[in-house]
């Protein structure tokens, strides 16, 4: 289960805050929450601060959203990425693809 809270911010940025787990069950919801904000020149921040789990389906949908945003001239940014998710991006060879901004909670160990 996951929740998606959408907050429009000034200067054409929209923040979609994800709380919970991103797996196969919620990929469609995540796409529906993020995709409508893809417009030329707009930045969509996906705030993963509340993310508790993500699997390959979840990463697949993030990749899909990233590619679509690029195609539509928008920018997809991941913020507040928790360490486990960041590790998963790394071991999946995806870390370099995303524009990942340093997460506040991120503390090196």
């Amino acid at each position, binding site marked *: 289960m996951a929740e998606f809270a959408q907050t429009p911010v000034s200067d054409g940025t929209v923040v979609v805050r994800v709380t919970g787990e991103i797996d196969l069950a919620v990929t469609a919801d995540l796409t529906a929450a993020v995709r409508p904000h893809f417009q030329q020149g707009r930045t969509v921040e996906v705030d993963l601060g509340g993310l508790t789990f993500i699997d*390959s389906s979840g990463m697949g949908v993030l990749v899909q959203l990233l590619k679509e945003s690029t195609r539509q001239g928008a920018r997809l940014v991941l913020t507040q990425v928790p360490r486990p998710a960041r590790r998963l991006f790394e071991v999946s060879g995806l870390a370099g693809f995303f524009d990942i901004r340093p997460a506040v909670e991120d503390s090196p160990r």
Partner: protein
Amino acid sequence: MRNPTEPGAGWPIRTGALVVLIGLVLTAVSSWAAYRADRSTEERLLETQTRQAAAVLSSAILVIEQPLTTALRVQAEAGPGGNRAVFRRTMAVYLGDETALYVSASLWRQDGDRFTRLAAVGKAPGMDPAGGEVQDFLDRAVASRTSVVERVEVGDRTRFAYALADPETGFVVKVERLLPANRRAPVDRDSAYAQIHYAIYLGEETSVEALTTTDQDPADLPLDGLTSSVTVPFGDTVLTVVTEPKGHLGSPLSRWLPLILVASGLLLTVATALIARKVVSTGIRAQDDSATISTLYERINGLYEEQRETFVRLQRALLPHVLPDIPDHEIASAYVAGSEGVEIGGDWYSIIDVGEDHFGFVVGDVSGRGVDAVAEMARARFTLRAYLVDGDSPAEALAKCSRQFDVTVDGHIVTAVVGRGTWRTGELVIANAGHPLPLLLDGDHCRFLTMPIGPPLGVGPSSYEATTVTLPAGATFLAYTDGLVERRDEDIDTGMDRLLAAARRHRDLAVDDLLPSIREDMSGDGAPDDIAMLALRRAVEVGVVGTDAGGDPAAVTVS
């Protein structure tokens, strides 16, 4: 899903009938009680009214008799001869026709055993003054301490003959009084009769012959329904007064209460029956609904089970049935369906004979689950296989594939470890597209193979960098899918550490036992996600087959 033979089928009707029955019984009982109470009240009220009527009648009798008593007293004072003139004068005021007290009056004196008429006034008496009947009548009067009464028919009219005797003087006064024509008396204005019909009979008998007066048509008598009767002394006999209320004597509420109770009781019964029926029907519908829903769920579960079995068969069909023999190498593989969800995943493994001294191998995983994922898996698997068979290196094969897979089109990303091995040397060239790192089990040296990880297939055209490792004799290469290490409540490193520990524990097992043992350590009876595993172990004694066939002994690294 309603089965008519189910016990619940007749419930609404049965319940409705039961409620109706109870309602009818309650209605009947309460209405009957109200009716009885009203009836008893009516009886009591009628009795009271009748007694009042009787009292009025008694006073009327006194009015009739009083002049007789007065006349006798006057005659007694007049002496044995009596005073005929006074008699005629005093009685004359009472004489007349229909409305008068009497129609005739006569004065008699007893002389021995016969009565002599001394005087007579008014109309001709109905009772023949010369006949024996009047003698008997007067005899009775003398014998009685009260007046005597006798009916006398004169033409079509009836009269009452009264006689009152004074035993001491022997005088007897006889009068005749005309009863109303056809016995009908105008309704008495006296309030005692205002609310009742009445019939007055001479004597105890209430036959038409005995009828004296009534407010009814005599043909309609006797009075029926609720009646009351009382007797009033009348000379030597009685008048029987029978009464019947004209309407309802008590309060209207008392009268209508039984009907009100019946009506309201029936309404309540019908309403309750309808409600009960609806409630029961709703209950049964709810039961039916839940039964239907349960059945549907069972069916859906059944369908899911079938679907899952189909997928598993499809999945199994796509996986190699028989792994090719690779000289100097032992191969083991496993595919374990996950416990989570009903749809299977797109995990796979391949061993590919690419001719000469080489073989290819792949362990891959398509994101998502279900038949789409399985189809995508088949595409990925056969595409990679084609490139490998065609002679492409793992990195080349992945790079080519990366141009053919697009997550925005396919909806999936594909991770894979792709390798090309040379059996003679144990050299493995491995490229990785976003896949969990393979393990190398080499005696005490168990480790993850460090290698560059390229992006998964589907992200877009990418290039991959291969790494080369030489498998020592007896060493095992182990690739797997993320289902083996990934758990929701921990990060990936924890799972990978656990895998390393499990691999170290079981490294000495035969390769066929290695995979089940590791898997069991990792997930017990059931992992949530599907798992594919492939193990490749290089024989301890390498070079037994074909080491002389031009192979370079130096390439067979033992380290």
